[in-house]
């Protein structure tokens, strides 16, 4: 190596060899090792730098050889939704992004994700009453879920009914960096008079009060403020209205908060 550096003829030959790589460098098709060699060469050779400007300008024209095409209409909205979600995400994340697990979209979960993407910054999540036209929105919302792949650490857990409410099901949309989750439930019968559904986190087999479930008939989601990572499961039980310090009634919904359920 030392001989190489002090041998003028070999260095010239090496420079000529590297200079041959300049067009491929401009075209972006060199290996990382070749790229590094070219860049080292460019650092000491102004003539090559000038030549590279010419090649790079040619390359800047090459995209125009492609025919313009109309992208799918959904792409525009996907992009805007993802960018808006980015605004809400904390700045200064590392280069490796964490991606949304592929969701199993329900209308409610999709609606929440959209709301989160649009309004996360101030947590002024809009309340616009009941969802007036779910079917009309469903398709649009589902396509927008994909755009939320830019939202870091969003995890969706499914929650299933127990024999006490076999048709009930739901989803937990968890925003890890905000320690906030939204619980949506479908097909859960309205609680009897004087009773209410109560949500519990399960930690080491011990139930922890997570508050009352929003009345199922209201088409609303229940917002939970917690680091779900410290709990093993989530459950919903039927309790006296106003809640109970400990679960007393039947459990109607439960779900493990494990990676396999996400």
């Amino acid at each position: 190596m030392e001989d190489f550096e002090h041998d003028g003829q070999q260095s010239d030959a090496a420079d000529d060899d590297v200079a041959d790589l300049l067009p491929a460098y401009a075209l972006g098709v060199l290996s990382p090792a070749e790229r590094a060699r070219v860049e080292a060469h460019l650092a000491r050779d102004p003539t090559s730098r000038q030549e590279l400007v010419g090649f790079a300008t040619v390359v800047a024209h090459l995209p125009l050889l492609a025919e313009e095409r109309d992208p799918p209409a959904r792409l525009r909205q996907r992009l805007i939704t993802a960018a808006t979600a980015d605004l809400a995400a904390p700045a200064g994340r590392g280069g490796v992004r964490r991606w949304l697990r592929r969701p199993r979209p329900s209308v409610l979960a999709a609606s929440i994700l959209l709301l989160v993407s649009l309004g996360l910054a101030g947590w002024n999540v809009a309340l616009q009453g009941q969802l007036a036209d779910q079917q009309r929105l469903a398709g649009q919302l589902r396509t927008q879920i994909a755009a939320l792949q830019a939202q870091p650490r969003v995890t969706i857990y499914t929650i299933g009914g127990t024999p006490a409410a076999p048709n009930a099901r739901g989803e937990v949309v968890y925003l890890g960096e905000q320690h906030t989750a939204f619980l949506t439930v479908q097909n859960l019968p309205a609680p009897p008079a004087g009773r209410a559904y109560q949500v519990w986190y399960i930690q080491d087999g011990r139930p922890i009060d997570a508050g009352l479930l929003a009345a199922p008939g209201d088409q609303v989601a229940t917002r939970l403020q917690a680091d779900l990572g410290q709990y093993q499961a989530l459950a919903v039980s039927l309790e006296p209205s106003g809640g109970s310090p400990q679960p007393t009634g039947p459990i109607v919904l439960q779900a493990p908060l494990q990676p396999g359920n996400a």
Partner: protein
Amino acid sequence: MGPVRTHAAAGDRPGTVGVAPARSQVGEGAIRMEDESTSDEVLLERLQQRDVRALEHLYDRHGRLAYGLAYRMLDDAASAEDVVQEAFLNIWRQAPSYDQRRGTVRTWLLSIVHHRAIDWLRSRANRRGDVHLDLVERSLAVPDTWHAVSANVERDAIRRAMAALPPEQQRTVELAYFAGYSQPEIATAMGVPLSTVKGRMRMAMQKLRVLLEGTGTWATR
């Protein structure tokens, strides 16, 4: 967002959140009218101020070409869609640190599309990382080719220039740029020695430069 009514959560108790219909944040008609008179430079400044509408404008202006490039390289609509979305998001995320003296937004965008598409073609396992500015630097340190003349003139110029090359040189450039082939891969694909590929590539790029210089699309500043 539209009109809001909130149910404040008391203490640690959970709040309830009604599910609102989606609505556009801005009127699209207004966007497109404004778009006509807004330069890319102004849009970039607004991107740097985290204005999502500027990203919409940029997409409306360059989305078709970006998608066309990605589709040409990937020949797959779904992959092209992903690549274009990633490229625009890349611009969005890196805009605050972008110095306009490095090159135009359009060149930057198309460079990212190109890199993304090549990554896709090579099926790199970690292709989802943002394309760092350094990787597209060589494409950016160029004179502003986009402002002096219209895209149509530039398109005609590059097409005429390519058509003027011998077929084997055209193919060499196309395999490199649109298929992401390395020089050894081109040599294999075309059944010629590597030295021949290098020679053809250099000759082609030099001729293209000369031909483009003669068309007036080679703007300098």
